[in-house]
Each structure stands twice: as C-alpha cells, then as structure tokens.
C-alpha cells in the first residue's frame, strides 16, 4: 500500500533491547511509535494516548501484567475492542499461540524478527 497516513504503533515489552529494536524498525518504516515497559504501563499508555494507536504489539512474558493480560484488558475496553493486537514472543510453541488466540490476539510475530517481517505483520492488520 502506498497511502501516506502515519500510523501509530504501541509496543509493550519489558526488555529495553527489544523496545529499542522495535522503535528503530518501526520508525525507519515511517510509523509513529509509543511504548510501554510492561502490561500495566502499556495499558496506561494506551488509555492516555492521543491519537490512539492503530495497532498494539505486545510481548508475552512481562512483569506485573503479561501479554495475555494485556490482550484481555484491551478487548474489554469498548474503544479498543477491535484494535489489532499482535503478540511478540520467542516461543514458537502452538500452545502459546493458542492461548494468545483465545485471549483475542489478532496475530503473532516470533522473535527474533526482521524489520520486513515486522512491517509486513503490521500492514497485514492495518492496511
């Protein structure tokens, strides 16, 4: 797609390394990036974000609130019930995917990711 609308992406990850990689990859691809350091903070950022993000990318394993918790919380918020949420995880095992799916994840990306695959995944849900 060639449309030039700037999309906003909320990334939730407790690893600063991962946050750095996400920010770099997404900003290079022309996205506006906002970030949360764990599930609880991610939800706070989501609630106060103006404009709200067009997609959320969240890690699974996090302190305070994990990725499943994030998805469930997002799906319970009337404004974001239909917001695409992509799960970012190192585990490729189907059980985790199934859990993320059950919680309401739109899709998943498995770490380590390439910028291209990350962008492709976002375009897949926000095109």
């Amino acid at each position, binding site marked *: 797609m060639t449309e030039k609308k700037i999309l906003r992406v909320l990334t939730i990850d407790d690893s600063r390394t991962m946050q750095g990689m996400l920010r770099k990859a997404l900003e290079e691809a022309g996205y506006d990036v906002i970030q949360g350091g764990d599930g609880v903070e991610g939800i706070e950022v989501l609630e106060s974000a103006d404009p709200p993000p067009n997609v959320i990318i969240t890690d699974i394993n996090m302190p305070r609130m994990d990725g499943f918790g994030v998805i469930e919380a997002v799906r319970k918020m009337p404004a974001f019930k239909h917001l695409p949420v992509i799960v970012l995880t190192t585990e490729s095992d189907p059980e985790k995917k199934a859990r993320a799916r059950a919680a309401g994840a739109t899709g998943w990306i*498995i770490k*380590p*990711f390439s910028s291209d695959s990350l962008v492709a995944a976002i375009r897949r849900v926000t095109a």
Partner: protein
Amino acid sequence: MSSDMDDILQIFFQECDEQLQELERGLSALSDGESEHETVNAVFRAVHSIKGGAASFGLDNLVRFAHVFENSLDGLRSGRFAPTHDVVKVFLKAMDVLSDLVNEARGGATVDSARVAESHAELADISGTGGNQNASQAATTEDVIPADFSPVPMDFEPVPTDFEPVPFDFDFGEEEATPAAASLLVTFRPHDALYERGDDARNILIGLTDLARECDGEIQTTCDRSALPPLTDLLPDKSYLSWQVVLPPAVSEDSANAVFDWVSEDCDFSIVREGAEAAAPQEPPAEQPEPAEVVAVMPPVEDHEAPPPAPAPSVAHPIQILSPLPAPATPDAHPGPSPAGSAASSTANGAAQTAARKPEQASIRVDLHRIDDLMDLVGELVIAQAAIESLSRRTDAAGQHELVQSISSMQSLTRDIQDAVMAVRAQPVRAVFQRMQRVVREASSMTHKDIVLTLEGEDTEVDRTLVEKLTDPLTHMLRNAVDHGIESPEARIAAGKPAEGHIVLSAEHRSGRILITIKDDGAGINRQRVFETAVKRGVIPADAVLSDEEINNLIFMPGFSTAAQVSNLSGRGVGMDVVKQAIQSLGGRISISSVPGKGTTFGFSLPLTLAILDGMLISASGSTMVIPISSVIETMIVNQSDVYALPDGSNVISIRGDCMPLIPLATVLKLSNSSTPDSLDASVILVVENESGARAALIVDEIRDQTQVVIKSIESNYRQIFGVSAATILGDGSVSLILDVSALVASAIGHIDIKPSNIRAELAA
C-alpha cells in the same frame, strides 16, 4: 543503521547486567527456601529476556545456553520439579556460566567450553528428571536449537512481500510439465471471532491484492451478500458477508494460504486452482515429490548465506485444497526462511562484532523523579539569578539588603542542587554486593567449605565511582573470610558450631558516611599466631608490646600472611595491605573487632562521595587551609596548664585525662620557624582523629568558616606534599590546601611513642 544497532547492543548488554542481577536475587531467594510464584517467574523472565535479545543479535553461544537454561527453569515454573538445594545450586552455577557468556559476547574472555558443556548437561539433567526424554533431550539440544531459531523469521510472513517475483518465472520455465496457467480461486467467509480479534475482512482482501500486484496482476472480487439480513435485523458485530476472489495464475497457493495464517480458525476459506480438476490427471505421478516432502527436505539454512527464494516447488504443483476447509495444516510448514530474514540477521551479526570492539560506554539508570527534582531546582536557580541581576542594578540601601538576602537564598539553592546531583549519581550497592555471592560461592567450593553469604542493606546508596571501586576490596575481604575466617566443617563441628559457615555483608548509612561490615562466625583472629608471624617476618621487634587492636591491625601490614600454607585462594600475592590502601585511597577507614571462637567483623567506613567534602576553614601562619570536618572531634581553647613538654621538645596535651600529641600546624607544615610558640594560652586547638581512631590536637591560629569544598587532586596537578591530601578553590578564588589528618596524626604519634614507633606510625596510617 549500524550505529543504531550498536546503541541497541549497548542497551542489550546493560540489560543483561540487570537481568543477571535479577536472576541472582531470585535464585538466592529460592535458595533461602522462598518459592513464590513471582520469584520463579522473575528468574525465568530474566533468562528468557537475555535469550530473546541475544537471538536478535545472532549471539549464538549465548542463545544456545540461555535456551537450555530457560527450559530447565520452565520445568521449575510449571512445577515439574521443586527448587531443592541441589537444583538451585545447578542454577547458580549456570548463572555464572551465563554471566561469563554475556561477557564473552561483549568481547571479554572466551568461556571454557567444557564448563559450558558441564553446566549444560546438568541443566538438561534437571529438566529431564521427570521423564525419560532426558537422554535424548540432552543429546539433541544442540541440533534442536538452531532448527528452533532459524526457521522463525519466515513463520511470520503473512504476505510474502519479500519474495522477488522473478524466481517465479524461472521456476515456471523449468517445470514446463505443470499447467499453472489457471487462476487461483479464493473464497472466504469470516466468523464473528475474526472481527472480535481486531482483524477485518478488508485486511485479507488487501493482502490478496498485494499478492496479485506482486505478480503484476489484479484481483477480481465478488462479495456474497446473500446472508445479509434486512437492516432492522442486522447486528453490527455479526459477520454476514463472504467473498470470492480470483487471483492471477502466478500467485501460489502457499502465499495465498499465508494470508489466512492468522485467521485459519476464524474464517472458512478455500483456495482452489481454477481448472485444477482438469490439470490433475495430467500430473506426472512418479517423479514429482509430494509437496509435503519438499517442505520436509528443505535443509536448514545458514544465517550468513541467503539462499535463493524457495517457494517455487509448491508453485509447481497443482495443489488441491479440500473445498470448505476450516484449517489447512500448512501455515507452520513453509519452506526455508525468507532472504530478508536471514540478511537481517547477518547484518545484526556484523553489528555485534563491530560493537564488541568498542569500549563499554559508562551510563547509569536514574529514577526519573530525581531528574525532575533537579530540573525544578534549576528552574528556581534561573529565577533567583534573574532576581539578583535586577537587584544589582538598584543602588539604594533597601536594594542592597534584598540583594544579600537573594544571594543567601541562592546559596541554599546551590546546595540543594548539589544534593540533587549527588542523588543522581548515587547507586545502590546491590550490584557489587550481589557479585559477592559468586565470590563466596566459588571460594567456598574451592576450599570445600559450606558457607552462606547473607546480604543486608543492599539498597544503601553511594556515589557511583565509589560503588565501582568497592568491588576489589570486598572481593578480597570475602575470599579472606572464606579462606581464613571460617574454619573447616570438621573444626566447626568440633567447636560445637553448625558445619555451615555464615558471613554477613551489610551496608548502612551512618552520619554522612557509609559503613560496610563483613562479619563471619569463624574462629576469630588468633592474636598469638598473628604476633608470632609478625615477629618472624620482621614486621615488629620480638619485644614489642601491642594492644589487641594493634595486633589485629598487623594483618594489614605489607607482606603479612598467617595462613599455615599459602592457599591458591588468598595467596595470590595480594595482601590485606592492598585492601587497606584501596579503602584509604577512597577516604575510608577500616576497623576490626574479633572475638576468639566467635568470629571477626571488619568495618569499612567510607565517605559518600569522592568529589566534595564538608570542611572546616582554618588559618595557620597566614594560610587558609581546609580540614575535613569528619575528622574533627572537638575544638577548644588551650589552657597552658594542660600542656606537658616531652624530653624531645614536643608537647602533649591532656584533655579530660586523655593525653595526645600536640601538633603546632604551622611548624609541622614548615610555614613558620619557631618550633614552639611562646605561649600556648588562648590558642585554638582542634582535636582530630584518624581512620583507626588515634587522636591528636592541632594548634591553629583561628577557625574561619565551615564550607563544602570541591576536591581537586594535588598529586596530578602538582606533586605529593606531606600533610596535604588535596587542594580546593575557595569562594574568593584562592587555592587552599586540604589537610591529610591521617598523615599528621601518624607523624605526631611516631614522634612520641618511640618503642615500636615505625609500627605505630604505619598502623595508624
């Protein structure tokens, strides 16, 4: 790009340090018998995070080990086994290996592969305790992990945008036998769940359009609205529509399937090659491998070499996908990683290598509140400065008065800013303390002793430079405590103590300084033996009469070792004297207390910062000098009747019955020639104390002020001067010397007590 990656790599290493600390904390909590779910989770997360980051940078050694570690921890997390003493021990060992591997990745020493393999096997052993897969798991982990990691990048290619269209053409050329000219017919009907999950039929349509565009084709879309109810009955969150899309012939079934990867359970869909029925019978049956086999045969791909794009085999075959099919089994079985994925990982590799050569950047993490506080104060400073500026233009008396007030409020503001900056630089001693766990662990396994190190007050904060400089002295002191302090288990049992030795390392703030104590429950210092050794080594004369404390202090003398045999642990050519020097160079003092049979306690008292000190401004013979306030015990006016002359011409003063040497400061520093002032009556004295508690009285002309001074090294700017530790610049711009109280006291004591004079002086120093 690569400098960005370098930055992120630096962040990664910082984060590794933090995660390793977290791991250490969690594991020690577990070894203390705690089994909180959150602790286990935190431990798991730490290793998991390191693995995740390492994988992004292609740090294979680290990934491989972290993966096995993580697997074992997962067993603990899911309750397959309990954190027994032995299990935690294995984890602690693995943590040390992991920390060394991180260091290796950072460009440090290469880790002994045998050690890694050993820990690796132990971890695999643990996680296999529950079942029989143990052996096979241990054997195959090496093979399993690369397979686990390299195919990953292609798993999240919902749309194969990375594939060049060109190879498709090639493949069509080669596989003439296959009639692939038929269009691809895709029909799909989303379930309600697809929308509930934040997805949209539109996304799928766009995905399919993208596929067609890549092949320079277009799609024909038909929407089936037959299920749509009248508007009055329409529910907004129900799915009523279905679509039929015709894709150009060049689009492969696999790539179309990939579009449905995320929605395979939330959408009925079918992908059929138009006219497939006609094509199928013509397919050469024997030579063509089954598509599934092609997938399975794909070799694992090296990450430094991008393979040719590989979706071709499946394109070549007319695949029949069962018509209304809920979930084809293919999504996870794509062939080969995308070239983009592997290219990215090879550049990441390159970045990792270049970054490893760069020196480590010094950085600290600071609580945002502290920065905010500082910012607030700077804001006030700007306002105060503006006020002073406007007041200074006024000439009337009232203005003058206000100006003075403004300046004094600015003074307190400056002080607040200074405190705020200090707070920014302050770091908890935790990082250093936790490193000591490993020191004790390794030392006790080397000496075959069972020793538990307990940490207290890890949150105590000190200046960052100080934190770093504490590592070596503490390491040495703890090794010493393990080696010499704690007895062997047999000796402990014989003495009626538990076989397990105990060392407590604690930190606390005490009156503007930090006090670090190392307390062991060992045998205590054997003063008889210390004394004999000291005599034997010629450190003291055989007839020296020393107090218990002085004997204790002998262990800090250069070249002293009481160990009957020099062990490979403490006997590294570094004596306790080095520790003492290190602590003293930080402006600290060491105290020892030892009870035979009960144990020894070492105390380090250190200033909170090395940059600024609270000083008393005094003058002697016309020069203004600074004495660190922490070493001034009291000030008073001399009464001539309390002063006694000694045969060598020096004086002592009796203060409430305590005799101490009287030091005429100006004379000692050679600022004036008269060795003894004519009358001491009414002159001012300061009672000062050095690190080991020895006191002396300094005679000065007057006390001027109390102020904070910034310490400037005199050795690096000029040269070492007796009695002077550093210099500073005062408010009026003049340079002033900061007195070295220890040296002054030591020289005075040396003068008076002639018996073991050199010893006393050195002990006191």
